């Protein structure tokens, strides 16, 4: 059943009355007071029990990350807010920073108390430089408030310069230290050896806001939402062939079918969940695919494609993106991305037989295990999911 746009908007509004944590106005002073009334262990327990997983895409349990950092013995620790939102199709962090910056700062302050950190850094992508003057203004006021309340913690903003890979936490740290944004080997993880080799928590913008809300309201409301593996809600960035586009906070655990009914234009043939580095879900799998960590995880990007679109073109666009944004440090990613791109071009032109696709699939499997960081390891996601589901569109 295809709903008209009005009905879709009405349904979304109903949904918003049930789920509204990120864009709800809050008194940050009260948030900080609540945080001060709790011990670091209590804060970590509250966040851990909420089941919150990182909202940048990787989905590491936030409470656990904080616990690891808190256990480290060091005079200096850092809290970094990852605002290097570069995944194609994602624009939620921009909107959160535009509308609820103080809640992001509050999340950082809460984290600082939990892990005993003294310095906070927001790494803002260069493409969002226009946000910086206003953010700085709000931040100055917030830093003053922190001082008044007796926090031994302050926050600064640093800008990126147009490198997608810097969204990877160790590349981000390299960049902050003044180096090329090339990911480090893990382990050691940033929680023990991060910025300046000190224990560092790197959290996504949205994750920090959920932390702030969990501390403000307790984790009960959060626990009521979502599924066993994917607690809570999530902010989605919807774009492409959609009737309704933009930013929507939705409960995790809905099926792609439910999602498409709310946003699609009635002719959706595929949804790319999680941006260029995510998975493509074809129409026949809409019913059985759950949006969440038990199905297809996402950092928020949801791109819809209707039947007028060529999935070859979509894949080509994604692979071009990876060829440009690969940092070039490890061979599987640098050469692999280029070969996948050239490979599908050659098949399309008839220079290689369709069977060549099997070789490319093997290459993609190799990249999954051999690439150094999340970027190279996830290039195979769009490649395999599009090639396997839209074979005819790739070879003809």
């Amino acid at each position, binding site marked *: 059943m295809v709903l008209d746009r009005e009905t879709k908007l009405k349904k979304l509004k109903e949904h918003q009355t049930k789920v509204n944590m990120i864009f709800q106005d809050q008194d940050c002073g009260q948030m900080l007071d609540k945080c001060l009334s709790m011990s670091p262990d209590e804060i970590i327990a509250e966040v851990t029990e909420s089941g919150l997983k990182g909202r940048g895409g990787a989905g590491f349990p936030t409470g656990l990350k904080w616990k690891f950092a808190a256990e480290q013995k060091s005079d200096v620790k850092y809290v970094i807010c990852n605002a290097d*939102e*570069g*995944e*194609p*199709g*994602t*624009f939620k962090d*921009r909107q959160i920073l535009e509308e609820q910056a103080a809640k992001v700062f509050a999340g950082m302050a809460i984290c600082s108390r939990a892990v005993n950190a003294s310095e906070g850094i927001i790494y803002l*992508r*260069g*493409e*969002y*430089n*226009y946000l910086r003057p206003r953010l700085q203004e709000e931040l100055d006021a917030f830093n003053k408030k922190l001082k008044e309340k007796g926090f031994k913690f302050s926050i600064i903003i*640093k*800008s*990126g*310069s*147009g*490198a*997608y890979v810097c969204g990877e936490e160790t590349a981000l740290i390299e*960049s*902050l*230290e*003044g*180096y*090329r*944004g*090339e990911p480090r080997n893990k382990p050691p993880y940033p929680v023990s050896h991060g910025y*300046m080799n000190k224990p560092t928590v790197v959290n996504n913008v949205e994750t920090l806001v959920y932390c702030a809300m969990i501390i403000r309201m307790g984790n009960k409301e959060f626990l009521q939402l979502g599924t066993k593996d994917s607690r809570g809600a999530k902010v989605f*960035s*919807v*774009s*492409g*062939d959609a009737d309704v*586009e*933009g*930013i929507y906070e939705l409960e995790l655990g809905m099926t792609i079918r439910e999602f498409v009914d709310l946003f699609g234009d009635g002719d959706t043939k595929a949804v790319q969940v999680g941006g260029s580095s995510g998975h493509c879900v074809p129409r026949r799998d809409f019913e059985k695919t759950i949006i969440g960590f038990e199905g297809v995880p996402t950092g928020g*990007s949801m*791109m819809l494609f209707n039947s007028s*679109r060529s999935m070859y*073109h*979509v894949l080509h*666009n*994604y692979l071009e*993106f990876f060829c*440009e*944004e690969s*940092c070039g440090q490890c061979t599987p990613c640098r050469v692999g991305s280029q070969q996948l791109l050239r490979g599908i071009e050659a098949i399309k032109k008839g220079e290689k037989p369709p069977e060549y696709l099997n070789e490319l699939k093997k290459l993609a499997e190799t990249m999954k295990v051999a690439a150094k960081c999340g970027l190279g390891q996830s290039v195979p996601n769009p490649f395999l999911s599009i090639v396997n589901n839209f074979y005819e569109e790739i070879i003809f």
Partner: protein
Amino acid sequence: MSSTAELVQTIVGKHGTRREHLLPILQDLAKEQRYVTEDAMIEVARALDLSAAEVYGTASFYTFLEPVPTGEHVIRICKTITCYMKGKDEVIKAIEDHLRVKLGGTTTDGKFSFFAANCIGWCHEGPAMLIDDKVYTKLTPKKAIDAINEY
């Protein structure tokens, strides 16, 4: 002392001389000089006690700091699939005709460079582009040219 050396000195004075200050220094230089020049990189290397190759290596990694001459204003149009689906190609064609420059080039009067960028975070309001730090969304060929004419 050359003007570049003076500029570098002022900027380094503002940020500091440790390695973690390198990126903010290069960002300021790119803002002041439109792009990071070879002379400036040598001066920065001297001030931070690094080799010039280290400075070049870092600068050349980042799209916004690439040490290649650019125009007075830099236009970066998003080339991600969602902007394409909303008609990015027509906008590019219109800008190319208007500025008489191909994507990737700089106008002969040195006023504009026209580059493609990866996702700039306005997918729901595409096609989108940045001119320097300012963002323009829901572009049509006409809107794009009007925006350029503001400069």
